[in-house]
């Protein structure tokens, strides 16, 4: 059976007090009250015992596969592009239980391994690390041990080394074809369980139900795949060789070092691209009659813009949630300039540009997100409101009642999108739950279906006034920049960012066993003034990251 992951487990009844009118419509809420106090539970009681939560076996994602072959073999060809896409469950495509291997994917691994290995072997002695002319079998043995350790991210056992030499190298080097023997070894490693998965079975399980600390090699991989979406580097291997990835201090020091490496961009971009639907934009279609400018170039430019902004916030600015949500700058190129109505930008590379803070501020006003959260022919207050609820407030909206025929409003000249959705507030079957979404989404009505600022919609002046209920920053606002300011001050939003990172970082949803880990995480985030870089470091300090449960066969 698949471990059940529930969004309801952390629901705090007290957080919903006073919301009886909408309480039936959503689940999820702040674990910590707005005033910063815990809901009747102290950290010490949550953390009385070391409880790691589940640790499902993780398979390399496509991004991790590509980055790993880059770092292992200097191969920058992104071979996973030919694989079927990683299966998606929940908010992210790295959910461990969904990453199965179909025959199609197994064949993708086979084909990729063949071309990757051939490219590497063409480099000859540089790649082998020895000169086969001086003794082929000796060179092969050296290669198996040295390359194997980097491929498996731990030293090979004697048995593994022997098998690779006897069953891969030897039979395939017949007819004096050394390269074919090594090719077989490399292909075999790239298709082995130890390369494609991150097994955590090195430590000897202690007594039943104990939390098991990870070995230093397993910790090196946890760190490298969290921070870099790739394999450990020499420094991590050296630390693992010295068994120096055991204490929280040792782990934090490595995490900080790794955040300073440009490789950290990849995992961070992947998180934001998935969390904020930027990646989904890749397959979003628009009605060319309504949005003739929207094409593959503009789609790619929008994605590049948001990722450039994320990079700037994370690595050039202060990495704070508030900056992410409110900075009135973006990174615009010739294509997105058309969306912004800016003239004179001709560069294909995004250029940092100041924006009118009354119109736009921060990530939720960027075209990539606004476009992904629209219909093919119009904006969508419902989808945009639901997005804020789910991805920033970590609340799940209940579905419509089964007896409602859902009828999205038509575009009618002279009727604004906002007015077209008025049925939701009239029909009592709809209004109970839609009041949690539509009034937030109305605040985005200044942006059309591809994120262009507008003051007129269907011939009517845009009304971008909105309101927020069921949160710790309830109240009215006008326009998305004002909403962003509210969200930036919300404890619930900050906690939600921490939870989303937890889900991404562990490839699973949170469970009751994660209460201490999440509490630790949120407190550390708060202590760091909501610096997301420090949140990532804090992820490595929790029980969930440092331990795994006993394997129960």
């Amino acid at each position, binding site marked *: 059976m698949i471990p059940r992951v529930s*969004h309801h487990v952390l629901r705090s009844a007290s957080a919903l007090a006073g919301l009886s009118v909408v309480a039936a419509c959503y689940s999820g809420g702040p674990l910590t009250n707005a005033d910063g106090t815990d809901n009747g539970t102290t950290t010490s009681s949550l953390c009385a015992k070391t409880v790691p939560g589940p640790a499902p076996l993780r398979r390399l994602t496509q991004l991790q596969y590509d980055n790993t072959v880059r770092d292992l073999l200097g191969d920058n060809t992104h071979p996973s592009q030919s694989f079927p896409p990683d299966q998606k469950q929940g908010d992210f495509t790295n959910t461990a239980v969904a990453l*199965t291997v179909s025959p199609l994917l197994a064949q993708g691994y086979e084909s990729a391994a063949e071309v990757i290995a051939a490219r590497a072997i063409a480099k000859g002695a540089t790649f082998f690390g020895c000169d086969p002319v001086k003794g082929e079998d000796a060179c092969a043995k050296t290669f198996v041990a040295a390359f194997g350790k980097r491929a498996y991210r731990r030293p090979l056992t004697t048995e593994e080394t022997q098998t690779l030499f006897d069953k891969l190298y030897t039979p395939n080097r017949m007819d004096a074809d050394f390269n074919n023997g090594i090719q077989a070894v490399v292909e075999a490693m790239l298709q082995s369980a130890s390369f494609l998965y991150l097994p955590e079975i090195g430590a000897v399980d202690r007594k039943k139900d104990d939390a098991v600390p990870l070995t230093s090699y397993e910790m090196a991989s946890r760190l490298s795949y969290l921070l870099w979406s790739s394999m450990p580097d020499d420094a991590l291997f050296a630390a693992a060789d010295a068994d120096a990835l055991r204490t929280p201090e040792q782990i934090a020091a490595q995490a900080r070092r790794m955040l300073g490496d440009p490789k950290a961009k990849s995992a961070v971009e992947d998180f934001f691209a998935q969390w904020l639907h930027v990646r989904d934009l890749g397959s979003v279609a628009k009605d060319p009659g309504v949005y003739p400018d929207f094409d593959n170039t503009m789609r790619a430019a929008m994605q590049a813009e948001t990722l450039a902004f994320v990079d700037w916030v994370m690595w050039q600015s202060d990495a704070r949630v508030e900056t992410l949500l409110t900075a009135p700058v973006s990174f615009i190129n010739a294509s997105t300039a058309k969306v912004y109505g800016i003239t004179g930008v001709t560069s294909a590379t995004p250029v940092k540009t100041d924006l009118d803070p009354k119109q736009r501020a921060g990530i939720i006003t960027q075209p990539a997100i606004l476009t992904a959260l629209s219909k093919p022919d119009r904006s969508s207050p419902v989808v945009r409101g639901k997005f804020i609820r789910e991805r920033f407030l970590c609340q799940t909206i209940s579905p419509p009642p089964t007896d409602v025929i859902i009828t999205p409003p038509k575009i009618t000249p002279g009727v604004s999108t906002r007015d077209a959705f008025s049925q939701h507030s009239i029909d009592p079957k709809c209004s109970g739950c839609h009041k949690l979404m539509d009034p937030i989404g109305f605040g985005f009505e200044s942006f059309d279906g591809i994120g262009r600022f507008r003051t007129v919609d269907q011939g009517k002046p845009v009304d971008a006034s909105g309101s927020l209920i069921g949160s710790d920053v309830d109240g009215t606002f006008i326009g998305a920049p004002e909403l962003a300011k509210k969200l930036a001050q919300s404890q619930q939003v900050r906690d939600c960012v921490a939870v989303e990172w937890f889900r991404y970082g562990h490839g699973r949803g949170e469970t009751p066993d994660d209460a201490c880990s999440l509490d630790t995480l949120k407190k550390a985030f708060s202590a760091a003034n909501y610096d997301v870089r420090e949140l990532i470091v804090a992820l490595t300090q929790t029980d969930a990251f440092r331990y795994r449960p006993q394997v*129960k066969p």
Partner: protein
Amino acid sequence: MSLRISRRGILSAGAALAAASLLPRGVGADNKPPKRLLIVFSANGTIYDNWAPSGTENAFTLSPILAPLAPFQKKLLIVDGLDVKVAHAPGPGDDHMKGMGCMLTNIELLPGNTQGGAGTPAGFAGGISIDQRIVKDVGQMTRFPSLEFGVMVHDSDIWARMIYSGANQPLPPMEDPVKVYARLFSGMQGNPAEITKLLKRRKSVLDHASVTLDTLATRVSADDRIRVEQHAASVREIEKQLIAQTAACSAPSGVTQIDLNNEANYPAVGKLQMDLLVAALACDQTRVASLQWSRSVSQIGFPSLGITSGHHDLSHKPDDDAASKAALVKINIWYAQQFAYLLQKLDAVPEPDGTTLLDNTMVIWVNELAKGNVHSHSPLPVVIAGSCGGAIRTGRYLKVPNGTPQANLLVSAANAMGVPLTSFGNPAFCTGALSGLA
């Protein structure tokens, strides 16, 4: 130009060549053409009053939506009244997810962490789909146990997967015609000696992969073990493909790179995929296949039909919205035209006994919903084409009693393919084979 592997090359590879793979194309053990199963999917329900034929079982007139199938009317069995019962059960998932994940598995979705538009959060389907169950019996006869084709599916979530090799084991469709061509038809490069060397290396590499996976499976938790064992099974399957390379296959022409993100290419990609699919069946590379148009909740637009709204948005318009209804009818007619093209291609492939590939195939066209705006699961619009070597009596419009489990059709499909099932999936939602098919 690639050199297709010769039969001598295969034999000299020395592996344990399955005897079945040496049978000439189109000859089964009983000297009759082999039977094939082909499942076709299109999304978001239909417009029943424009879909259902009129008349009697044996004398019926095709509806506007099914009119494009007129040339094949004698080879059709239109089944009206089936109900995806399992989708009414209180399991996880919304109606689209349940339709997609349950219509071929007849089992509830697993609990998970994907929240749909209704219901509780769901995971992937809880069991094997009927085609893959049939594969267990007939899949060893061909190079590929089955082939899954998709047309602009794009996503990889629960709404985008209908074929399952087991619980939580969705099989992704191949979406890029160029890659399909390479996988099915490009053959192997090089002279016989080089091919022998390559096959030998591949075999040792895949053997090693299986051993490492089997070893890992013994050391992880029960939940993880299922996934690792599935991976090992996938490796063993591609290992069989090494030695069962089909000798002579004529590949379709005109397969060139095409932008899979541009919806204007939807018809062109679909045609290429159908051409490749029929070619694969024609040279017996597989006997079980599926073709998935887009996905559940498809938002594909049809500007060439003058339809600019997304399909799913349209499917939610109220019944009295005449313009939207007309657009939905047009979309479903378009899918019927594609289905007709597929049937025409299948019917153009002669078999040694004078029948056609279509005659020896059971093509089943399904939808994850009956009616889009109410998310109903009955009466499911089901069209069967081909008699599967005489197992199905065609040329009929079969009205089954309302509430007949759609899972019964899955049992019948297995029986038609020679797999003797009496129930499939969750037995609570299946009462045995559908009567009146033969």
